């Protein structure tokens, strides 16, 4: 007799603060057969504070997961592994670990790229340090700047630190040391370097303990063109291209006394650094003309480098659709994928046709999505409009978003939550939008909680009852049971 198929899945979102930490339990009838975990991160928090969440998670999963997925290397997705390293190190086992194909250091295509990308991250770190030096101590009160400008410079430095902390680790001297610690703990300790690197187009149904469950790998895309695109539809055509920052990164990496070949011209055109009579130098250093100097202005480019690095990493998210084979219902976990990744899903050469009609399988999967883990914490770029949300038209759609204003960098508050995304989600889910912490969140000057309450009134009594039965809340988590 074949094993009875999975009937439902409990999705538990831990409320550690802005960032993803999900535990999934798959049941065949009453029997728990398969346990899964997706990411373990938050913007910040001490080990003591995070301990209770991870302990609960371990209890909930009975100290074992059949499948651990780490979507991408951002602090808000992996910091928990670092902060609770000991907890994860004791009596906790993982059968399989998945990461995106772009994390495979041994693959020729990924390795050169990872090195280049590492250089960009390093440059970002150095530029961030430079900004911190420029705004601290005596330079922080430089009289060439107005009080507002000084405050603006401090703000810039802080925003930059916010980005650098999210991306990579630094030692106590603020020097770049590479991969986030949480990421290396997963690789070396939890996964024992036995990692499956997933490629888009793969359909994985190989878990005997999860009969009737299929994993569709959507992203990250295999083309860098797609990875580079943060957003791109009408009115959202702001795209980043990391290679544009090459010259900037090179200058930052060259440090304070760059060699002559760091300049864009041959050495014969460069002034002797000791020549104080150079006409340009005399003009630049002229007394009472200091207000026209441009010494620091070029470092503003660190802002666009930070955005580029950040978007790039988001687009490297391992994005999965989890399908209940029999019913065709889908749970979508896109990590923090941005527009370029979403768009690429629609060009995947699936070995399998759509269930209905002659549409592309990706569109079909989106049509059948009944649970959506909102990408990138409700930001504008995180959810594609036409190629994403507008295709999620299943009447049972429920969404979970990992946003919490109590634990977030100030810079993010201006982009999260995006009003249009929230409105569209509320409409499509009839208010079944579960946000990690609604406290302080507003949508168009109205508290999010009242918007959610208002949207819920559109549910029928039966829908309301079904939702209430499937939803569970505690201080540590929100949980929703997805019917298969």
């Amino acid at each position, binding site marked *: 007799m074949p094993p009875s198929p999975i009937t439902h899945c409990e999705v538990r979102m831990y409320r550690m603060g802005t960032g993803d930490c999900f535990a999934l339990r798959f049941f065949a009838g009453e029997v728990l057969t398969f346990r899964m975990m997706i990411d373990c991160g938050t913007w910040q928090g001490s080990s003591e504070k995070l301990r209770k969440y991870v302990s609960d998670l371990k209890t909930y999963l009975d100290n074992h997961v059949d499948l651990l997925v780490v979507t991408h290397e951002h602090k808000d997705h992996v910091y928990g592994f670092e902060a609770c390293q000991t907890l994860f190190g004791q009596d906790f086992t993982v059968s399989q670990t998945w990461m995106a194909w772009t994390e495979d250091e041994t693959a020729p295509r990924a390795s050169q790229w990872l090195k280049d990308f590492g250089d960009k991250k390093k440059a970002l770190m150095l530029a961030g340090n430079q900004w911190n030096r420029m705004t601290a101590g005596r330079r922080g009160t430089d009289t060439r700047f107005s009080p507002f400008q000084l405050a603006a410079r401090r703000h810039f430095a802080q925003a930059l630190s916010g980005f650098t902390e999210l991306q990579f680790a630094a030692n106590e001297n603020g020097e770049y040391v590479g991969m986030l610690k949480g990421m290396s703990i997963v690789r070396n300790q939890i996964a024992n370097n036995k990692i499956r690197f997933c490629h888009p187009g793969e359909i994985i149904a190989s878990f005997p303990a999860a009969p009737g469950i299929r994993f569709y790998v959507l992203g990250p895309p295999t083309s860098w063109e797609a990875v580079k695109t943060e957003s791109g539809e009408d009115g959202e055509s702001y795209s980043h291209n990391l290679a544009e920052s090459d010259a900037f990164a090179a200058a930052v990496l060259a440090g304070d006394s760059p060699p002559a070949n760091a300049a864009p011209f041959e050495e014969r055109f460069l002034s002797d650094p000791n020549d104080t009579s150079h006409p*340009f130098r005399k003009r*630049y250093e002229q007394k009472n003309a200091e207000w026209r100097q441009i010494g620091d202005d070029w470092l503003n480019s660190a802002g666009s480098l930070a955005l580029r690095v950040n978007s790039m990493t988001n687009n490297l998210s391992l994005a999965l659709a989890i399908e209940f084979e029999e019913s065709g219902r889908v749970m979508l976990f896109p990590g923090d994928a941005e527009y370029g990744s979403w768009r690429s899903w629609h060009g995947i050469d699936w070995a399998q046709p759509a269930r209905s009609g002659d549409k592309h399988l990706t569109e079909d999967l989106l049509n059948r999505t009944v649970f959506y883990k909102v990408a990138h914490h409700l930001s504008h770029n995180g959810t594609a409009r036409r190629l994403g949300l507008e295709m999620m038209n299943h009447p049972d759609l429920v969404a979970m978003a990992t946003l919490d204003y109590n634990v977030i960098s100030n810079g993010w508050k201006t982009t999260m939550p995006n009003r249009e995304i929230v409105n569209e989600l509320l409409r499509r889910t009839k208010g079944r939008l579960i946000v990690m912490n609604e406290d302080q969140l507003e949508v168009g000057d109205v508290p999010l909680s009242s918007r959610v309450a208002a949207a819920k009134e559109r549910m029928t009594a039966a829908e309301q009852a079904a939702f209430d039965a499937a939803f569970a809340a505690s201080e540590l988590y929100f949980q929703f049971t997805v019917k298969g």
Partner: protein
Amino acid sequence: MSPYNSPPDLPAFRKLRGYAFDPSLSQTLATNRINNIVYKVAWEEFPEPLAGEYIEIVDYDPTVGRYYEALDLNSPLVLAQDGLDPSESDPRFHQQMVYAVTMTTIANFERALGRRILWASRLLDSRKKGTPYEEYVPRLRLYPHALREANAYYSPPKKAILFGYFSAAPANDTLIMPNSLVFSCLSHDIIAHEVTHAILDGMHRNYNEPTNPDVLAFHEAFSDIVALFQHFSFPEVLRHQIARTRGNLSSQNLLGQLAQEFGTAIGSYGSLRDFIGGWDLVLQKWVPHQPSSDEYRTVTEPHARGSILVAAVFDAFLHIYDTRVSDLLRIASGGSGVLPDGEIHPDLVNRLADEAAKAAKHVLTMCIRAVDYCPPIDITFGDYLRGLITADMELVADDRLDYRLAFIDAFRRRGIYPEGLRTLSVDSVRLPVRNIRLEPNRTGDDPMMALIDFLRDYAEQIKYRNDRAEIYRVTRSFITGSPEYETGLHARLGAKFSGSAMFSYITGLAFHGDYAQVGVTSAGQQAEQQPPSFEIQNLRLVNRVGPEGTLTNQVVFSLIQTSHLDPETLGPVARKTNYTAFKGGCTLIFDLDTLSLRYAISKPLIDQESAHTTGSLQLNEARLSAQRAYLGAESLQTENPLSQFFLVDGRTGGEPFALLHQH
């Protein structure tokens, strides 16, 4: 000894070679021959290397902390060969290119305006006691290699243009060499665009303040218009493109595009902006744009929104060109107007090119002159259209070729209308002529007459002055007063018009009644009747000759008044600590020949109607609420991720263009 002291025979021009567009067009066979041109720049002497009358170049590269070798424009080796050879690898040529294009752009402005241009003065730190309000800035500073970023911008606080360079990241490896360095200071279009930002800032410094979606877009559009129409002043380029398009400038051509290399290097399929058409990713070919009113309603990003205005102006130009060449096409085609297949005759090319050059020059001149007839703040595209039509009607009585209609029609097709018009005819688009006329022989107590007398003095004083520092000094003295010119304009306006409901009505500013109640503070100099505070900007003489010999003889200045309001109640605030600033402004145009106030172009701070009818003083609620709605809109915050993350409340700290121009 001769009684004559002959001036030295200075050459009229300094010839300097440069790119007509940018280096990328020198790398393809089809365009290489037309891309290397000779700029003819008015001769000037250099007291120091590369520091002339208007600009100074500082080739300091802070990214590597080095100075690059300076070009010596007076070296015989440079003079003998019309400047250095165009070269991407020689920084001295970069300096030459920046110098040549900047001076060409300045010359175009001065020709159109009929006066010398001044850079925006430097506002000094009012926190220090005894510091004067502002300081003259003789030269714009140009940094050809200031940033490593796909960016170039004008910095209002530094009165400098910072050009960036970056690594090319093309969409396709065949378009441009990936990772090659792209220098924005080698692009004619980028240099002309940035210099225009600086010149416009010198004319209207408040155009940096985004109080409606059109303001920053206008700055961008105006800069693009200047860069675009300068293409038509390069005869070789023009003839080549006319021949290639067989005289049809509505088809794809280089003249209607900006910044080819820059656009390709940041991953576009072609130029940064194309005002005639664009690359269709689906059809994989260039297709012409179809104007629609949707764009003006929905597009808010300043460059994209500005492009709507540029496209409208370019469309007007194409109509004018078509009108001008229709007879030539008939002559060349035996009367049918349909040219036979194949190349067109070189003589026809030359004639068409002449007409295109003439039309472009007219359009550019109209566009530049229009700025004199615009309000000093809060400009909209509709205001600009009115400025265009008015400026032209002042000077050109007989619009034989329907230039004005071509503009109105092109704006209409994009849904751009001036506010508050009942019809859209040429004469209703023209600003209402006030002609508050005063008899020339009346003297004594008529305040308007006394004012015009004073302005005539100003015109006399300024007319024959050619030294820019002198022009600045005299103008400044007329505004603030000095032993030389007695009481200045500011004090005179305060004395003559405070308390006048009529003047409030004309200007839309609070000059009468209890102005404190609308948040306007008092200027606080005179004891008896305290005039309200206001600012005078941009006092200038507009002295032009039209095509039929018509003379314009006008003095123009702008008034700006700021109301400080409580952000919650919108009532007046006692202390200027936490407030919402709401500005009103008015450009007043006095005709010295008819001795009248001819136009008052107002962005009213107050409700003009009630000032007129009941004499009461109320804030202009309609403008105030529109401005607050615009500034509170979410789109402002989500548009530019750099501003979201890196700026405090989206405030740029005086650098409005630094982020705006970033890619």
